[in-house]
């Protein structure tokens, strides 16, 4: 089993050295901000680099075979100055898996307005392949967000005006909504807009494929992304949520992972997992369960079973 923490630390050291080589004198704070790590991690790494080197001719790690830094400037002023370096000049190549992950990520995001320049993205992927130490393994993710809604949302933010659209909820009712866009989130093929909803006076989440007729308004935006702290999880629980016990075949259990609340108990009964899911209303539940026919069944409460049964029966009746 690989020691991933030590691997991460090594990758960091191999990345930090060329950065320091390129910067004659740089503060710990600046390096920490650039790499997005705590300052203590930079100081630890610099102390290690400062005493590291190669065995050299004498095999004794003599002074000239070691990295050196200006220790006074480091200890007194929190500034890093490399005064001697060995072995490393440039940044390391990407591993095949690293390059594959980035290339697949770019493919997945190719519907974003930022990716409009196709030729530029293709050349970026080619550079990643060439900058890898082995041929990137074949990992491919289809782009899924395809219509122009994302571009309009971005325009709304860049011009500072609200976006208005028709939104049909899982219950089926359609409403006109006016929103200050805050963030685009996605999970595989499902894309969401989180924004300040002027109708509800709160942060709401909208599925992009339930949005229709989006238009840019003339009303200025009230909130921008930096003004609002968004909860980390997209699917937040609320006290009004309904808890439903279900049986699910083990291979389909990952499909329900987002609905299973923290601390839910899962038991195995006759080859099925019995667990609890959380839903905000039975309209969402009946759609979910009808899309998992033969894979999942509601155990209780009875009203939830009835909601699913009626939905499916009404659907089946259309074929008679």
């Amino acid at each position, binding site marked *: 089993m690989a020691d991933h923490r030590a*691997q991460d630390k090594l990758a960091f050291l191999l990345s930090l050295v060329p950065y320091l080589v390129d910067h004659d004198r740089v503060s710990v704070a600046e390096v920490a901000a650039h790499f997005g790590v705590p300052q203590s991690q930079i100081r630890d790494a610099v102390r290690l680099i400062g005493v590291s080197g190669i065995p050299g001719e004498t095999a004794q790690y003599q002074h000239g075979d070691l990295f050196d830094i200006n220790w006074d400037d480091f200890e007194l002023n929190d500034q890093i100055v490399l005064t001697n370096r060995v072995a490393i000049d440039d940044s390391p190549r990407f591993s095949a898996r690293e390059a594959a992950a980035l290339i697949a990520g770019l493919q997945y995001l190719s519907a974003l307005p930022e990716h409009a320049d196709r030729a530029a993205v293709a050349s970026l992927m080619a550079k990643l392949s060439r900058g890898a130490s082995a041929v990137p393994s074949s990992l491919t993710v289809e782009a899924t967000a395809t219509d122009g809604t994302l571009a309009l949302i971005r325009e709304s933010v860049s011009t500072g005006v609200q976006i208005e659209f028709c939104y049909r909820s899982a219950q089926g009712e359609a409403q006109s909504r006016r929103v200050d866009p805050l963030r685009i989130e996605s999970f595989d093929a499902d894309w969401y807009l989180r924004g300040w909803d002027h109708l509800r006076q709160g942060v709401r989440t909208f599925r992009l494929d339930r949005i229709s007729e989006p238009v840019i308004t003339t009303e200025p935006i009230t909130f921008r992304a930096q003004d609002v702290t968004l909860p980390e999880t997209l699917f937040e629980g609320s006290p009004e949520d309904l808890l439903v016990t279900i049986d699910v075949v083990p291979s389909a259990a990952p499909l329900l992972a987002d609905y299973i609340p923290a601390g839910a108990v899962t038991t195995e009964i006759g080859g099925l997992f019995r667990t609890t899911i959380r839903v905000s209303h039975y309209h969402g539940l009946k759609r979910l369960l*009808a899309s998992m026919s033969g894979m999942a069944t509601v155990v209780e409460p009875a009203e939830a079973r009835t909601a699913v049964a009626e939905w499916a029966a009404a659907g089946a009746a259309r074929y008679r």
Partner: protein
Amino acid sequence: MTAARATPRIPVEERLFSLVLALLASENGLTKVDILSTVQGYRQRYLVDGVTPGLERQFERDKDDIRELGVPLETIEAPDDPGNNQNLRYRIPRGDYELPADISFSPEETTLLNLAAMVWREGSLSGESRRALMKLRSLGVIADEPMLGYAPHIRVRDAAFEPLTGALEKRLVVRFGYLKPGETHARTRTVAPIALIQHQGRWLLHGFDQDADGTRNFLLRRILTPVQITKQQFEPFSADATDAALADLERLWSERTAVVAVEPATDAATRLHKRRGTVTDEAGRLLLHYTDVNLFADELAGFGPEVLVVSPPELRDAVRSRLERTATDHG
């Protein structure tokens, strides 16, 4: 200096870092004994006990850990003494280690790569994407802040994903139990993996099925046993194999068209209308493309009475039987 019995504790990362530095600096490579006796982190143990099996195992693990980071740690046989393991030399050729000098990334490109790395925050590629970003930052480029916040996620919740990426990289044949829709029992498949593809939000393994003697797609969700990685290595597939698989999926998708009547002003009407490639015919029915009849039937069944499949008959039957089964299971 006295050879103290109490060897100083050298942190793992210091030993790994020292090994990389030593191998990068050595033109002709170092033998294992050179390394164990002189490199920081090994020499402290060597001084006390010499070459021990434990120290040799440590070196083997360290080599694997270093190679996993994309560091090209090479083994060279002595030309006058091939096959003698004691004379193997190890080195890291600088040209294969360093990012080629003509590769640089603009602030816009760095922004795109930051976003691309973000999608793997959960799951087995999170370490890779984090380390790729470190290497990117070492180039010192400052990314443009995107105008709008993004939080994209690709999920890899299928247990088969992790072993399959490993097998794909090492080009090893895998074996797993696969449940084909319509069959009641999982059947063992022996497959040379060609690519992992996420299509319509689901992970597929595209591979060469040795028993069927042809390429097949396997939905990871239908792999019901742990993936067993064999020792059998296969020749690399051509670089076009993945593109061919994608083109095949795309061709299937455009060939398979369903005619569906949707109730106006419903969730189904909004969402199906927005699917890629959807066309409305004169009668107001939707023409929808799909690749897998079972997966598409699951999706359409979720819409309940909002959707009526007109054709093809196999899709119509699949949706109808799903709805009937759900109604019965909850009756």
